[in-house]
């Protein structure tokens, strides 16, 4: 499964690293949501898809169109922000 979202008019495709996925718990969808929250800017609309996107014909012309399952990336928890070095220990302690 992958994430797709609009990146300045072109559809971006986010492919998880298998080793990172293996560290996560939960369903496949929960893991993809976690990656979206971690790797997409907060507030980015996206969708999780398992469509075959290997045909890259006119790749730069691909556009993201919102579907019925669109989600929006959210902030990680403070614990995860500390875990992924998004904030320092001092910032964590002050929160």
């Amino acid at each position, binding site marked *: 499964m992958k994430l797709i979202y609009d990146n300045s008019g072109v559809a971006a495709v986010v492919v998880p690293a298998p080793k990172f996925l293996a560290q996560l718990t939960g369903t496949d969808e929960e893991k993809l949501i976690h990656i979206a929250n971690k790797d997409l800017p907060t507030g980015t609309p996206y969708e999780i898809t398992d469509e075959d996107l290997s045909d*890259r014909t006119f790749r730069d012309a691909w556009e993201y169109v919102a579907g019925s399952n669109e989600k929006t990336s959210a902030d990680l928890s403070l614990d995860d922000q500390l875990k992924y070095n998004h904030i320092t220990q001092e910032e964590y302690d002050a929160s």
Partner: protein
Amino acid sequence: MSTIKSSDEHLTLNADGSSKDIKFQANGVEKASISSAGAFTSTTIDATKLTGDLPAISGASLTGVADATKLPLAGGTLTGDLLIDKSANNARLTLGGGYVGQIKFENNPVVTNWMVTSQYVKSNAFEIIPSTAVGGDTFTTPVLQITSDGRGLSQFTAKCWVKMDGGGTANFYDSHNASSITDNGVGQYQVNFSNNMANDDYCAVAHAHAGAGTNDTNIFEMPEAGRATSNISGHMMSALNTATTFSQAADGLVDIVIFGD
């Protein structure tokens, strides 16, 4: 010499009255007594005359009973080797029940001391730390941390490495400290780090390969400045078939290795 004795019967010394003791004196000085409660007190007891086993009494106040062949629970100095029987498969040295275990290597005073420790600076890491001063006992900055999720943090360990294929659906052959690839278009990729870099002054080295011939030149162009701490992005550029100009390439193999803080 005077003797108090009985003849084939009990000898009774009786201090009559409440709380009256039986006292023994020598040259007018009391040397021993038996209190009305039955407690025997003596100025000295000749230990060489004692035989038999001690009863279960508290030895908390005993002095002068140290065993030079055994270390005390705290403060002793082991002068020989510490040998742990390795014939047992589970032989191990366990340090501390608290949250920090430490081994300090105190060397000749004219060189740096070292500490090998867990969770001293970083909460989930095994750490190697030199003393801040020669012969010192202050340890602040690790030169190597190994985290519980398998990362080695130092100036000489790769913070991230990736072998990926940008063709078809972009995918990883293998990776370390990378959470995902963002495919932004033809030859445009972004590798998202699992754990952010400490700053954007990291060293990123990349190799790219596209084209089937031996006369192709490919590069993976990364930003000179303004890099993100959460990812590294770049463009794959190719000059195929001895071409002299580069163009944003068809998609291919990219290797990236990153060192930094």
